[in-house]
């Protein structure tokens, strides 16, 4: 075990980033022209980084596996993006955003990183508005805000339920501008299958052209992985079907440390699973908890229709357990509370694995307000419902529509059924303050790194982090690293390291193609997902995790004996793409279990059944586990743990209480 | 964005559409005028003959009208050539047709058949101009001396005679159907192509366009039928 150097600058917290920016090295414009940078992934982090670096003069090559950079799954983020603008005058500040994020993350993130994130949050909003992102506005023409889970101020900027889409299209437009300027060469339908290390530095990648199946070598002076999270290890998640861990996992196999892999976020408000054929889960924005009330019947196995259950026979369990935050407790808390009720037999719907998210009282409340505004003195119940429905539709219309499309139910009339689902992964490749992994020249941005959210991410913070990393952090810190490379010149793709990496990729593809077994890739992915969800999901135990590890090992063996990938490797072959990704998930899943097993405490999204208080709240252990668990890839299922101690100099870790 | 672009308006897809709209809407004006003139045919024969022929003389000799008529010829030709070229381009844009396409699900019949309707109208215009315009200008239309207007070419008799043939009437009636459908979509579409749209006025304009299409085509169609029926007596 070694000590990891996080390279956090000295000085007072609030000055660290400023001082660091002033002291790091720069690359002059003429030299930037002779430096290549590879950016893998074109979501918020990747597109913003590629665009910003290209604007500065670097020659950028950007890669995405989708048919266009605009498809990256950042696009699906609904609710909003946080920024400490304090436009509401409600007491928000950079410090408060910093504090909320540290606390929300259950004291498992780096103070310096989180503070920097809060600082640059304000620049992000400015940047996006200048790009033409149409955020919601008030009648006066100024930006509107709403509140989100885990905080008591309104600091979330939004564009209806499509904030991620608008921000991504903003970054995509900046990227497109650089493509047309010739500063970025865009490679779409390309999947990175390995990182190439030349003399100890990340100097390129091997990518597969998904249309032709050809393997390509691309060299650069630095490689940025902006490839998102690994939630699809659970098969069912709110991630896109193509979201995968392959890029970061290949880097991990080349020596990059994987930090806190067990920190996964289970989002409380998703549409429940309806059958075996289910391919993905759909999130209902957390913003719905602003106005919706969550409940289950007080009676177990209550068969009545929800509207027939009288008020006094309902259990608004979040309001009961957490009176201060009520339905707006952080995600991890809300998810566990839903699981607790369902496990105890109070669940609703056919599967009994769902709770109600009810808008009836919000409709009544808004309807009454609206009637008052319109001067209607004695409105009928019908009139109130009509007016209230209009207000709710204007706020959440697209989400309600989506719910109706998927379930066939009308959420204006009957409560929505929701259940937690895998949504985000706080863990990721370990990076230092400069967002560089322990492999020199390999930078990791956005959800792909582990850095800012600790053990639980607050709502509307993922967009903030992705854009902060890409627009405002890496453009500075990358220069510091590249300052050594101004004389290096082109990196040749004929270097033996490229031969070796390409050979290994070729070999893996051949191996998978030649198994010609009898089971589909999805069979293995689903089996892995079930193991992960049951044993490394919302609640984990030592016994379950140990079982999971041996089950995953057996599944992996079966995969390499039984998987069937039709077609050939020299053409567009979606089954092959999936197989390569699932092969990596089968290794990652095991590491997640090791990590969860190692962390003998409950914190944030990581809940170990052995470590809970009497009333079922998470029991954190700051004495023994206030560290980042960074795992080095170990041959033969023996990952090696490295620790980075977390020092809290500005906030004192306390038990999170939302009561 | 840097560097200027200097493509001519007409080379662009939008430019071509703008000219379609301009010429089309101008031809709508022309139709209104033409219709007003033709309605004189509904007058009692004894009045109509002189009045209509005098009107025809005015229309063929007045310099201002002449100018307008050149503009009309140009518009018709341009509208036809441009329209056919656009239709050809549109064909190129989808070389492989769908196995199954439910066109009626999302667009009106008229809007989907503008090129066919337009081609029919072009054929009609050729027939129509041969029968009357050509005869009037270059043919041997008998000349007679009217009391009020002096010497007049007897276009009236030419016209009324022409519509004694049932098949000729039928061609006209069907063609006016094509005019109606063409205008049903074309009127509103022309304004859109010119970039004119407004949340309140556009729906009104579209409604007017549809009314215009019906009124113009029906009134035009009534004339040959009327003349045919009167010829039976």
């Amino acid at each position, binding site marked *: 075990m070694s000590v990891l150097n996080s390279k956090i600058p000295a000085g007072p917290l609030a000055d660290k980033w400023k001082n660091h920016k002033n002291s790091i090295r720069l690359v002059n414009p003429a030299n930037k022209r002779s430096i290549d940078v590879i950016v893998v992934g074109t979501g918020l982090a990747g597109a913003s980084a590629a665009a910003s670096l290209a604007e500065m003069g670097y020659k950028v090559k950007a890669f995405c596996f989708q048919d266009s950079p605009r498809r990256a799954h950042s696009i699906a983020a609904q609710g909003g993006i946080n920024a400490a603008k304090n436009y509401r005058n409600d007491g928000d500040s950079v410090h408060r955003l910093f504090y909320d994020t540290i606390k929300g993350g259950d004291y498992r993130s780096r103070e310096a990183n989180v503070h920097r994130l809060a600082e640059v949050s304000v620049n992000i909003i400015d940047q996006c508005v200048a790009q033409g992102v149409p955020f919601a506005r008030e009648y006066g023409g100024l930006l509107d805000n709403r509140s989100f889970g885990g905080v008591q101020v309104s600091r979330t900027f939004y564009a209806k339920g499509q904030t991620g889409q608008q921000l991504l299209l903003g970054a995509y437009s900046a990227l497109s501008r650089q493509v047309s300027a010739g500063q970025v060469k865009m490679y779409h339908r390309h999947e990175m299958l390995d990182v190439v290390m030349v003399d100890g530095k990340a100097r390129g990648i091997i990518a597969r052209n998904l249309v032709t199946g050809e393997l390509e070598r691309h060299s650069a002076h630095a490689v940025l992985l902006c490839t998102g999270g690994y939630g699809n290890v659970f098969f069912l998640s709110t991630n896109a079907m193509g979201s995968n861990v392959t890029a970061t996992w290949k880097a991990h196999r080349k020596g990059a440390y994987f930090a806190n892999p067990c920190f996964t976020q289970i989002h409380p408000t998703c549409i429940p699973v309806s059958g075996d054929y289910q391919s993905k889960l759909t999130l209902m924005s957390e913003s719905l908890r602003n106005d919706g009330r969550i409940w289950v019947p007080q009676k177990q196995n209550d068969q009545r229709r929800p509207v027939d259950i009288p008020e006094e026979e309902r259990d608004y369990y979040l309001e009961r357990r957490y009176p201060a935050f009520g339905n707006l407790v952080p995600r991890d808390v809300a998810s566990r509370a839903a699981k607790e009720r369902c496990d105890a037999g109070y669940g609703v719907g056919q599967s009994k694995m769902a709770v109600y998210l009810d808008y009836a009282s919000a409709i009544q409340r808004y309807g009454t307000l609206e009637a008052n505004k319109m001067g209607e003195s004695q409105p009928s119940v019908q009139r109130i419902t009509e007016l209230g429905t209009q207000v709710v539709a204007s706020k959440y219309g697209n989400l309600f529509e989506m719910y109706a499309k998927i379930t066939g139910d009308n959420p204006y009339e009957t409560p929505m059924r929701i259940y937690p689902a895998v949504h985000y992964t706080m863990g990721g490749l370990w990076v230092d303050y400069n967002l560089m992994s322990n492999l020199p020249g390999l930078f990791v941005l956005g959800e792909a790194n582990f850095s800012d959210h600790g053990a639980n991410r607050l709502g509307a913070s993922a967009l903030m982090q992705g854009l902060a990393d890409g627009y405002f952090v890496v453009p500075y810190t990358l220069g510091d690293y590249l300052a050594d490379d101004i004389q290096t010149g082109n990196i040749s793709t004929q270097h033996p390291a490229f031969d070796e990496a390409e050979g290994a990729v070729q070999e893996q593809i051949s191996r998978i193609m030649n198994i010609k077994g009898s089971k589909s890739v999805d069979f293995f992915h689903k089996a892995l997902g079930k193991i992960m969800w049951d044993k490394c999901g919302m609640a984990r135990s030592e016994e379950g995790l140990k079982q999971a590890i041996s089950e995953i090992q057996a599944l992996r063996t079966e995969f390499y004996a039984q998987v069937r990938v039709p077609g050939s490797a020299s053409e567009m072959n979606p089954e092959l793409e999936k197989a390569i990704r699932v092969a990596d998930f089968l290794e990652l899943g095991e590491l997640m279990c090791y990590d969860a097993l190692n962390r003998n405490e409950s914190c944030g999204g990581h809940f170990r059944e052995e470590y809970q208080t009497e009333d079922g709240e998470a029991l954190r252990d700051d004495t023994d586990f206030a560290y980042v668990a960074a795992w080095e890839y170990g041959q033969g299922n023996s990952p090696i743990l490295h620790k980075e101690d977390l020092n809290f100099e500005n906030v004192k870790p306390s038990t999170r209480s939302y009561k | 964005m840097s560097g200027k672009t200097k493509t001519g308006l007409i080379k662009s897809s939008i430019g071509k559409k703008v000219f379609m709209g301009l010429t089309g809407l101008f031809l709508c004006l022309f139709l209104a005028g033409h219709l007003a003139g033709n309605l004189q045919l509904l007058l009692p024969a004894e009045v109509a003959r002189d009045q209509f022929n005098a009107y025809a003389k005015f229309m063929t000799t007045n310099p201002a009208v002449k100018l307008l008529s050149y503009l009309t010829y140009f518009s018709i030709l341009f509208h036809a050539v441009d329209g056919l070229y656009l239709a050809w381009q549109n064909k190129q844009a989808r070389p492989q047709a769908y196995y*199954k396409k439910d066109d009626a699900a999302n*667009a009106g019949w008229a809007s989907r058949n*503008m090129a066919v309707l337009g081609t029919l109208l072009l054929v009609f215009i050729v027939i129509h101009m041969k029968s009357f315009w050509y005869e009037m200008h270059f043919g041997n239309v008998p000349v007679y001396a009217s009391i009020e207007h002096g010497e007049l070419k007897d276009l009236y008799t030419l016209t009324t005679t022409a519509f004694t043939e049932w098949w000729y009437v039928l061609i006209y009636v069907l063609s006016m159907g094509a005019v109606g459908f063409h205008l049903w979509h074309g009127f509103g579409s022309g304004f859109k192509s010119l970039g*004119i749209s407004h949340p309140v006025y*556009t729906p009104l304009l579209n409604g007017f366009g549809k009314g215009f299409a019906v009124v113009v085509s029906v009134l035009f169609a009534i004339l040959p039928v009327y003349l045919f029926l009167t010829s039976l007596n």
Partner: protein
Amino acid sequence: MRLNLKIWRQKGPKANGKMVDYTLNEVNPEMSFLEMMDVLNQQLVDEGDEPVAFDHDCREGICGMCSMFINGRAHGPMTGTTTCQLHMRHFNDGDTIVIEPWRASAFPVIKDLMVDRSAFDRVIQAGGYISVNTGSAPDANSLPIPKQNADMAFDAATCIGCGACVATCKNASAMLFVGAKVSQLSLLPQGQPEREERAIRMVEQMDKEGFGNCTNTGACEVECPKGISIENIARLNREYLRAKVVQK
């Protein structure tokens, strides 16, 4: 329920394709259309055949990747719905469903139901952006924008770039796609400096890609899964004309 499928199969970009018949016996009405396709592909893999290649990613109606022409309509029979959000409860037992790729010369088929929509990217690269470098933006609230304009810009900006407008248009025209982007940026004060240049460049690129011409049939508006208004096409015409007139 039991379904008969007629699906376009095409091995590669240059290969000849044809419609192939398949039968699925156990389709659950709660499935999404793409989950039904997953079941078909599972069946094909089990039988040793090659699964049907189709584009899809987020499966929640926002990434714009799914792109099937179902029973003669882009994204199938429901309006305001992408293929991934279309559910089998809208079909009946015994139905025959015809599934084809988007058809347009600007969207060449890659394989089976997959098409290449990079023409859209090139149109955006031609000018679908505001030239602002990172770090040079003024405070976000320094420039108030009338809510009405902001809302209209937002409505135009919800385009997911799926290509349904092109696929359904009888002329394979991309005017709704281009109109939406030009509208969004021309409605915002930030978009003004490049307003003319943008309209001209984007239209030029659109024409270069081989999309057809708009004949205002309105089909695009009906089939757009995000309900983007054809009003944006009129605005594009206006912006383009205006640009041609004022451009120096």
